[in-house]
Structure formats: structure tokens, C-alpha cells
């Protein structure tokens, strides 16, 4: 029996991973829920968020709060890019065969990864943790870095904010309505195109934000786009594509299975996740909290 402080530390590390995955996967799930497209390029937005954070930190020099400004500016930049992509390219594909949409997002993955290589080269980039959050906290015998703690708190905050916006605001009602029946919504006089652009911008923002916030914990390298998209897909598949709380639950499960999986299958921790995903797909093909597609 491992001692409790270790179990606690392990659970918290799983929680940190979960909240990052939630940030990234929620954007993917939102876009799918409303637009009914699987956006493969979501991982590319995450990667651009990370490179953007590196770039802004670099440009901002030694100013106060530069890390936070860099994260915000980078996520906003990615959101604008997402909006442009949706408005000028993606919108031509609505109503066409789904295959075209998949091909388009896949092409976008290739283009953006090459663009990143041209802009930033192949050398790995690194961003330090923000000055206020460099230390660590000792809790029940476990060491918890402040930055991880911040991420653990940020995840639920964003989840609640999101939930509130979807349930209680006018835009949220439109988004929910668009997810259910876009034709009727359009017939009621709502500008569905603008709504779609808005959702895409928001989804891209979340992807970019995840990428920017992860930079103090991971090296920024080419290829990080495709690594994360697989993880994000697993999360939304477990939780249920398009389901908001499903994504949250999927991320929580993913984090804990990964953290504790290595204790039972030290060399096959990733296997436990895929086994779980397979089990979910067999029992509930639409995910734990998802709804079967009509």
C-alpha cells in the first residue's frame, strides 16, 4: 500500500493534466456540438497558442505580468485566426459532404505545422513559469507546484463560467438552439453564420489558451499539435462528443487513469486509457454523457 501523501500527489498531478485536457478538449467539443464538424486543426491552434505565448514573452521583454499578457494576447491571436479561417474558408463547406470538411481541417493541420516551422524553426522553445507561481506548496506531505494549483483552480472556473454563459445568456441560448436545430433557428431570424463564426472563435480561443498556458510545463516543439489532438479526441470520445460536462468528466477520468495507471501497469500506462476508451465505446458508443446521434 503506497503512503497517502503519494496517492494525494498522484491524484493532483492527474487533476492538473485533466484540467489542461479539459481546456483544449472543450473547444473541440464545443465546435463539434454546434457546427457538427470534427476540427482536426484544433491541435494546431493549441500549438500556435504555445508558440504565440513564447513569441509574446520574448517581445514583451521584462515588463511586469508579461507571462499573463503573453498568454492572453496569444489566445486572442489564435481566436482571430480561427475566426478568419471559419469566415473565409470553412463557411464555404457547410452543407457539403462531411468528407470535405475533414479533408479541409486535415489540410489546415499540415499548412499550420509548416507555417510554424517557417516562423519559429525546428529548435525547441521554452517559457518560464510566471514569477508569482514559481514555488511549490507542501500539502499533506506532497509537493504541489503553485502553477499546477492555479491550473487546477482555473479548469473548474472556466467550466462554471462556460456553463453559466450557455444556460443563462442570450448568446448561450442561441448556441444551444443551434446545436439542436440550425434550420429553425435561421428561420427565426437569427444570423446563424455569425453565430457559427462566434462559436469557432470561442473554440479556437480555448485551444490557444490551453497551448499558451501549458508552455511553462512543456517544451514548445514542432509536432505538439498532433500529440495533443489524439489526447483531446480520447477525452471527448470518453465523455461524449458535444457534451460539455461529458468533456469535463472525460478529462477527469483521463487524468486519473494516467496517473494511477502507471502504478499498476508501469510500462503500459497509455494502454489503460485506450482500454477505457474501448470499453466506453462498446457500452455507450456516444460517450458517458453524450447523446446518440440521430
Amino acid at each position, binding site marked *: 500500500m503506497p503512503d497517502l501523501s503519494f496517492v494525494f500527489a498522484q491524484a493532483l498531478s492527474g487533476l492538473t493534466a485533466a484540467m489542461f485536457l479539459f481546456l483544449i478538449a472543450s473547444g473541440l467539443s464545443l465546435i463539434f456540438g454546434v457546427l457538427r464538424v470534427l476540427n482536426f486543426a484544433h491541435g494546431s491552434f493549441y500549438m500556435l497558442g504555445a508558440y504565440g505565448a513564447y513569441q509574446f514573452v520574448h517581445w514583451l521583454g521584462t515588463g511586469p505580468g508579461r507571462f499573463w499578457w503573453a498568454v492572453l494576447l496569444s489566445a486572442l491571436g489564435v481566436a482571430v485566426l480561427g475566426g478568419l479561417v471559419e469566415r473565409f474558408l470553412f463557411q464555404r463547406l457547410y452543407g457539403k459532404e462531411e468528407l470535405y470538411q475533414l479533408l479541409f481541417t486535415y489540410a489546415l493541420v499540415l499548412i499550420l505545422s509548416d507555417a510554424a516551422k517557417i516562423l519559429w524553426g525546428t529548435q525547441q522553445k521554452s517559457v518560464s513559469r510566471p514569477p508569482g507561481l514559481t514555488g511549490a506548496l507542501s500539502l499533506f506531505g506532497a509537493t504541489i507546484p*503553485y502553477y499546477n494549483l492555479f491550473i487546477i483552480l482555473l479548469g473548474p472556473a472556466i467550466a462554471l463560467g462556460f456553463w453559466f454563459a450557455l444556460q443563462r445568456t442570450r448568446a448561450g441560448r442561441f448556441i444551444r438552439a443551434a446545436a439542436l436545430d440550425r434550420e429553425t433557428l435561421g428561420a427565426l431570424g437569427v444570423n446563424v453564420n455569425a453565430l457559427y463564426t462566434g462559436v469557432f472563435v470561442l473554440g479556437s480561443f480555448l485551444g490557444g489558451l490551453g497551448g499558451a498556458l501549458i508552455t511553462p510545463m512543456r517544451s514548445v516543439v514542432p509536432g505538439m499539435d498532433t500529440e495533443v489532438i489524439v489526447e483531446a479526441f480520447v477525452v471527448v470520445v470518453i465523455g461524449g462528443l458535444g457534451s460539455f460536462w461529458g468533456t469535463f468528466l472525460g478529462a477527469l477520468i483521463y487524468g486519473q487513469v494516467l496517473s494511477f495507471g502507471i502504478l499498476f501497469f508501469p510500462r503500459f500506462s497509455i494502454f489503460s486509457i485506450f482500454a477505457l476508451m474501448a470499453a466506453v465505446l462498446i457500452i455507450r458508443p456516444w460517450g458517458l454523457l453524450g447523446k446518440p446521434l440521430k
Partner: protein
Amino acid sequence: MIRALTLLLAAMLALPIAAEAQKPIKVGYPMILSGSGALFGEPALKGAQMYVEEINAKGGVLGRKIELIPRDTKGDANEAVRVSRELILKENVDFLVGTLTSAEGPAVSVVAKENKIVFIANIPKTDQLTAPDKLHPYVFRTSANTTMEGRSAAEFVAKWPVTRIATISPDYAYGQDVTKSFVEHIKKLKPSVQIVDQQWPKLGEADYTPFINAQLAKKPEAVFSSLWGGHFVTFVKQARPLGYFEAIKLNFIGVGEAGSPETTKALGAEYPVGITANTYDAFYWTEGPPAQREYNARLSKYLKDEYPNSWAIQGYMGIHVLAEAIKKAGSTDSDKVSKALLGLTVDTPHGKMTIREKDHQATRGLLYGQVVKDAKYPFPILKPIIYVDPARFMD
């Protein structure tokens, strides 16, 4: 269509003019040029290209220029096999040099054997590449192998006042083989050593925290790690705030070039100074051989980089050894070059290096050092650099 025809016509006209004897010697260079491995594959290619440019400027080899034909393996063994076949069948290359990972090297070795074409692996370290059952006349290696790297690391750790030792390595050929060599050798050098924990994150792992927690729970006194490149950077970013390096009192040895300028540059002030690590090369190795400093001066100019890359030497040495073998053979016939490679001694920037007859392995030296801060550079360096001659523990 017309453009294509014109090109074809031009090519047909140009062909007979280029005299048959002046045809360049074609060398295929399968290397990771995209994805996260590209940050090492790219400079390795640059090193090879620099050598080719230099030798061609001097008239080439046997009066013929060398033409390097790079192909992207995407870090995938299947893709490496595919592009190698394509290089041999479509481009008609005379030789293959290259590959980066320990998955690609052995895969391409099989292609070289089938096609009877000399292949010089310039980066993969896994012992399996040239193990007795895998060895064939056409495969050679100019990098160190996992036995040499694991054992040299064990020699350092054996001198530390520690007995409880743990390992953390990526779970694929390189990580497994180098860790095995380290563990076997340290047990031999210091029988009181206990291996208290072994972690095997997958290659490409992005979240090391659970592995770090699990390792710390076993209370090791020292750690051997073969995490390399971006993985090492990510690992450090997650291990430092958890107090990992303090817990083991900086008794950490990182192989896989964890001390290379590229890696210390990427981590900057976050690098856990005080640990021991290795590198392929170091431009700041002032007490090194004059040829090494001279090579770095040329590379610095070639790359337009004040702090030239340490992985470039891998590409440089690989193609250098091939060129010397062609010279010695007086021919570009793979069978003759393969024979010429046996026992060939080459003057590399790091000193004399011999390709052993028995296992086709170069007696490649290893560079280690303690990572320290130095006011002269904006990133930590190894100081002093210790050159380990592997000859005595290669068998």
C-alpha cells in the same frame, strides 16, 4: 504540360553533356526533417551538407562530386524504410547515411542488406543495430552505441557516494538498451548498488508528473536518465517544481545529450545546474582538440550561428567516414567500400576514430561534464568537459 515537356527535353539534352565519369556519387540521407525530431535531424543534415560542400570544393572524392539527397523519415521506422527504398530504386543512390532514432536505424539496416548497399548509421545508438545476429557486411555506425553510453555513465555514478539508484528512460529500443547497459555495468563496478525504481514513460510522453511522484516515493539517492531532446526539457520543467533534483541532491546523470547546448539553451535558467550530462559536441570545449575548435568555427560560419549546433557533428562524421572509405577503396562499389570500412581509421574533429572489424562500430568518444552556469554564455555549459575513450569497455 508544355512546361513539363520543355523540362524533359532540356534534361535529355543536358544528359549526354555530363560525362559519365563525372557523374556525382549519390548518397541518400534519410533523416527526421519534420515533427519534434526535426530539431535534431535538421542540424544533423546541415552537418552532412557542410562536409559535402567542403569536400566538393576540394574536387570531391575520386574526382567525383558527392551529391547528398535528403529524405524526411518523419521519425517513423516504416517511413524510413519507404524513403530508403525509394532512394535506392528511384534515385539510384550509391550509399545511405543517416537515420536518427533507434527504431529507424535497424529498419533501414535491413533495406541496406537486401540491396547490398553500404549504410552508415550516424545517430542511432541501440546495440541491436550491430548485434551479432543483426550484423551484416553493409551496416556501420559512427555514433556511440548504448553499451558505450550506458557503461560510461555507470563509471561516473559508481564514484558517487550512493547506493539506492533509480532510472527513468523512454520505453523504446534506445531507452531500454542504454538503461540495461547502465544497470549491468554499475552492478559490476559497485555490487552494493540497489536499483530501487525504474520508470518507463512512453516515447513522446508529455506529462511526467505521475512518473516523478512514483519515483520520489521510492526515495532514490541517484538517478540515471536517458530522456533526450524536448522530452528532457519537458521532464525538467515538471520535475524541478516538485523538488525532484533537491531530493536526489543533484545526483542525476542525463545521457542522450541532455547536456548539449541545444538543451541547456532551451531550458536556460530552468536547467538544474549541478547535474551531470553528456553532449555530442560543444563549441565551448576550449581544452578540446584544435581540429574540434576549427570545425566549430567553420560550422558557426556555415550556420550563421554564434553558438553552433552540437548535433551537426553526427551528420558530419557519418559522411566523412563514408568519403574516407570510398577513397581507401578507390571505388564506389558497395562491396569494396564495405571492406575498406573494416578497421578504417579517420581523423575526426574529436580525434582518431576507428571502425572496428568485429562489430562495425566506431570507437567514438563520449563527452560528459557537470552542468554549471558560466557568465560568458546566456545558458549553462558543461565544465570541465571530460572526454571518455570507450575502447576499454566496448566489449
